[in-house]
């Protein structure tokens, strides 16, 4: 249907004006899903009937002269670790198969209140632990640009759904890069907001001091639109920042004249593929041409971020995932005693990577090792925050690759967990600091697969970050433009 608008902004404008119906927009996206979902596997569940009812309700409101809101009639995909009342929420784990939450996540309520139409629940690495979506209990998601390659992870389904045109926008969660890295690998925009800007109520917890919900989209403006809709204080999340949501759409055209942007030295050298680094330098030149001052800045502790993260995140996970004990929800494997039932249920219900992280976290927190591992990692977290603070004395924003490489092939890293973990090296420091960062597509690598550049900002620096993202987007070479 060539006449239908494709971005969330255009769809919402057309639906609000009565020029197109939410139902016909939905049908076009359901047709796209029918055509390609078999090979992509972006969804754990497509909500065709529920979405039709929601779209019809939006159309009825328009017909009655009401305004359904800024996301009127926009199909939206939800990562399957966001609770949806009465609708299965699995975290791509056997242990939650069939569970229907008794409540909606705050973000689910907010997008519905803004007029969005939830089209399905997307696949992820089990409990968001992974960088390729290969750890799903329901099979991997494939990269829409090349189905022999991973979409990244853990929000691989949400990234692939947008890249494949199944939905113009989606929501994911980012604990160590789980929005930004799949966005980069699939060639879409992905944003990890400031910790506390978006309520985590109803997001199934992985590592509570790091988790944050954020948007995927094909354009920077659509991510701004979606983030405006989900941000803002929520009394049900005690870590929610008590202030109004930022204005982002209004500042997108303000440019970068006079901004100081620093290339992070530690994330431009060893371990970063030369074609990816070259694209990041090209993006820096574009920002410079638009009036920004570009410099190099050292964030020494960034190189320790990976080690600290892979102690802190598993430690928090081992505690958070203790709740899956076969008592209150999800699966149970029967056994004569409760202790045996707990063990049998967890052994059967969790996949390999989740078990590995629970083991690592339990070890890091156990008597005799707490100070050596977890305690030291928390101190490194302080160093990372201090280093960022020093960098932001001289720069407004930082720039780096999102991922060290373009999308890798299935099975390339599954036998070596450490090599998979190293894939997160550019994204992890942001989570440890609680800062915002986003990935913007910027042409292709030597293999023709998408490259993402990462913009980083200090806490609550989203408005400045989005201004620079709009400049990067406008200067981005097309994927078809050969890498030279």
């Amino acid at each position: 249907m060539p006449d239908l608008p494709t971005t969330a902004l255009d769809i919402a404008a057309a639906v609000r004006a009565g020029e197109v119906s939410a139902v016909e927009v939905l049908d076009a996206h359901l047709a796209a899903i029918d055509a390609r979902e078999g090979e992509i596997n972006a969804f754990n569940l497509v909500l065709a009937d529920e979405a039709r009812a929601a779209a019809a309700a939006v159309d009825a409101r328009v017909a009655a002269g009401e305004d359904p809101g800024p996301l009127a009639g926009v199909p939206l995909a939800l990562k399957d670790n966001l609770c949806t009342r009465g609708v299965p929420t699995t975290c791509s784990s056997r242990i939650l198969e069939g569970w229907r939450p008794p409540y909606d996540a705050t973000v689910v309520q907010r997008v519905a209140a803004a007029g969005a139409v939830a089209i399905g629940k997307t696949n992820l690495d089990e409990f968001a632990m992974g960088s390729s979506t290969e750890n799903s209990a329901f099979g991997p998601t494939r990269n829409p640009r090349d189905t022999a390659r991973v979409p990244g992870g853990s929000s691989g389904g949400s990234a692939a759904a947008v890249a494949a045109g199944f939905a113009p926008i989606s929501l994911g969660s980012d604990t160590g890069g789980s929005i930004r890295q799949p966005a980069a690998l699939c060639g879409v925009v992905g944003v990890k907001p400031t910790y506390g800007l978006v309520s985590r109520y109803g997001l199934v917890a992985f590592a509570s001091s790091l988790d944050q919900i954020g948007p995927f989209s094909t354009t920077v403006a659509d991510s701004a639109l979606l983030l405006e809709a989900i941000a803002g204080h929520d009394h049900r999340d005690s870590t929610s920042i008590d202030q109004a949501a930022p204005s982002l759409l209004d500042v997108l055209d303000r440019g970068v004249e006079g901004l100081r942007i620093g290339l992070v030295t530690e994330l431009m050298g060893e371990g970063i593929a030369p074609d990816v680094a070259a694209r990041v330098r090209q993006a820096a030149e574009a920002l410079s041409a638009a009036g920004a001052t570009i410099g190099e800045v050292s964030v020494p502790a960034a190189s320790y971020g990976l080690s600290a993260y892979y102690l802190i995140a598993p430690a928090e996970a081992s505690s958070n995932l203790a709740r899956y004990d076969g008592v209150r929800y999800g699966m149970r494997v029967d056994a004569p005693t409760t202790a045996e039932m707990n063990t049998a249920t967890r052994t059967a219900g969790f996949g390999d990577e989740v078990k590995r992280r629970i083991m690592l976290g339990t070890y890091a927190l156990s008597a005799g090792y707490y100070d050596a591992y977890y305690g030291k990692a928390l101190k490194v977290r302080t160093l990372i925050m201090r280093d960022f603070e020093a960098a932001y004395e001289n720069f407004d924003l930082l720039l780096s690759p999102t991922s060290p490489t373009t999308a890798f092939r299935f099975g390339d890293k599954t036998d070596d967990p450490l090599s998979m973990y190293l894939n997160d090296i550019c994204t992890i420091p942001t989570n440890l600091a609680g800062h915002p960062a986003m990935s913007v597509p910027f042409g292709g690598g030597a293999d023709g697969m998408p490259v993402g550049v990462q913009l980083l900002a200090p806490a609550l620096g989203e408005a400045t970050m989005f201004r620079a993202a709009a400049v990067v987007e406008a200067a981005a070479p097309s994927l078809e433009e050969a890498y030279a």
Partner: protein
Amino acid sequence: MSDRLTRDDVAKVALLARLELSDAELDLYTEQLGAVLDHADDVAALDLADVPPTAHPLPLVNVLRPDVVGPCADRDEVLSQAPSVEDRRFRVPAILGEEP
């Protein structure tokens, strides 16, 4: 290959985490967890004696709500998701060593 983590350590951690590992899994996890801990040696080499820990990115204070009755989850809806229920409560197998 790391020697800091033994097979017995891994077995003990599995018990604490309420996971049952096969012999093959014990061997695999001993190797893989050792590799991750080896990588963490770059952290161990840092002088952090005077650095305070950061457990959380926000300067958190206790958040309290007004002490008034509000809506909460529906009991029957919550119990409908439990593996086993009796008398409107969660039901579990024997605890404290009683006969099953």
